């Protein structure tokens, strides 16, 4: 009999009040009513307890390294100001106390007025790294607008500016990628990875930033590497077949948080740093011209596309360990063409 009485509060009302409580807008009266009924009804009480236990935020989720992220954010902010040569409106901490507050405000206002136009036209972060490409659980091959070829490791991501190659070539990398940069001395290309920036003018190099330590391996051309995470770290010039490891340590007091090593070629004249390029990879909506470049470097051949229409045709697909003819046959399925392979030269019609 007792149970029947306790069950007076219908399940619907109970759920309604519980939902209100969880939503965060239960009134005092409603809360009292809910509590009273919970005391009387064992079943509802258990449901109530379990629901609330479940509502606790999940613990033991992967930790977020807030301090490191904050550092990165400051570095990125500083990079944005540095790259666009905007007068820094953050006075050096040492000088900060010298200026009275009103003067600081006046200076800030003046700088904002001067820089405002450019700041909004050119440096809004929206403009800087708006385009993103992400590799899922396969390596990804892609060609950027300026013709730069990028091999991206699994789960890596690049973000780059709009109208890439016209005024600006800024890439932000997380993970690992190999860049074969289209030559254009007028517009230097910068890759920012974990706060380490690599500046190039036309070259091929591998950046591995899957760990906090960043590794840059240079195959040809030259690049300069700068650790933006450290205030006074030098710009280091890297020569072909050199590898630079930049350790992630803010605590290191001297400047030698990097090491330069020579790349050691294995028996097949491939350095281990770039061996992953020959692993399975995917490409999405890539122009045939770009895929031809990919096949040239993968199969060590030279490819000549006779049909200009075919060049512009876009393909999506994946390569595992196919041979060159197998790959060409597969591509032929989605857009008809014929090919001839003689020695190391491929002619595609």
């Amino acid at each position, binding site marked *: 009999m007792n*149970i029947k009485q306790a069950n007076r509060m219908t399940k619907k009302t109970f759920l309604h009040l519980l939902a*209100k409580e969880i939503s965060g807008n239960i009134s005092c009266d409603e809360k009292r009513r809910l509590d009273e009924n919970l005391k009387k009804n064992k*079943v509802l009480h258990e449901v109530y307890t379990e629901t609330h236990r479940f509502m606790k935020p999940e613990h033991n989720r992967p930790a977020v390294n807030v301090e490191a992220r904050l550092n990165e954010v400051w570095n990125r902010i500083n990079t944005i100001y540095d790259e666009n040569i905007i007068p820094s409106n953050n006075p050096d901490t040492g000088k900060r106390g010298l200026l009275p507050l009103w003067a600081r405000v006046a200076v800030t206002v003046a700088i904002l007025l001067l820089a405002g136009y450019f700041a909004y036209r050119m440096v809004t972060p929206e403009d800087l790294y708006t385009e993103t490409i992400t590799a899922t659980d396969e390596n990804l091959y892609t060609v950027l607008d300026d013709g730069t070829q990028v091999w991206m490791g699994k789960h890596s991501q690049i973000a780059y500016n709009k109208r890439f190659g016209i005024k600006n070539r800024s890439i932000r990398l997380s993970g690992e990628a190999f860049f074969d940069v289209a030559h254009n001395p007028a517009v230097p290309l910068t890759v920012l990875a974990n706060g380490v920036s690599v500046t190039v003018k036309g070259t091929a190099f591998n950046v591995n930033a899957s760990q906090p330590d960043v590794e840059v391996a240079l195959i040809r051309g030259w690049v300069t590497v700068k650790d933006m995470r450290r205030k006074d770290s030098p710009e280091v010039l890297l020569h072909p077949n050199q590898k630079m490891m930049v350790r992630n340590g803010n605590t290191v007091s001297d400047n030698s948080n990097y090491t330069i090593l020579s790349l050691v070629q294995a028996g097949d004249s491939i350095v281990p740093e770039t061996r992953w390029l020959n692993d399975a990879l995917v490409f999405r909506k890539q122009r045939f011209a770009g895929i031809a470049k990919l096949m040239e470097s993968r199969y060590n051949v030279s490819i000549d596309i006779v049909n200009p229409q075919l060049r512009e045709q876009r393909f999506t697909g994946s390569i595992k360990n196919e041979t060159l003819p197998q790959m060409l046959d597969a591509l032929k399925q989605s857009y008809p063409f014929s090919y001839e392979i003689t020695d190391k030269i491929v002619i595609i019609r």
Partner: protein
Amino acid sequence: MINPIVLSKTDSNTKQLFLEISTENRDAFNALFHRKYEKLVRFAQNFVAVNSLAEEAVSDVFVSVWINRDKLPAIDNPDTYLYVSVKNRCLNTLRSKPYTVAIDEQPDIKKTEYDTPHKEMEYRELYEKLNRLINQLPEQQRLVFRMIKENGLSAKECARILNISVRTAETHVYKAVKKLEEEITAYLGYSPKKKTTKRMIMLAL
């Protein structure tokens, strides 16, 4: 001297921090970052599956907060502003690479607050069930529910962030809670069909 803002804990001070940041106060920016970063990452994880992408999106928002700091004083509700910015940033990320699927699997919980292994196992079973149930809810229902559960937001705040009516948000919560109740009842052995027999046994005891 310690900045007093760093010590205060209530969210209502986000407005104050925004004002400080607009006057170039780096300490205020750091304080805001410490206070909000992790919360916003948890929130971003509702949209993008990959942890690093969620962190990236939140970092992007913070960079833009500093760059556009002169506009901060005009923002009426800074907390909502941050959540909405993160949401938009995540949706942009998803749009630019449709191959990333929105989160469907939650990281396994490795440990619960229960000490004895038996209790832990028992609870884990139910927890997994409920988690699966929530993941199967319609997109928006699940989102509102997760925002409340993982971010401690109210239905009202969810509504503002997702740009839906408060009533809709509350209905989402109601539906989710109803599903949970059914599952819990069944799990505890009070499933509707068995109700009478169970009762009888209880009475008999």
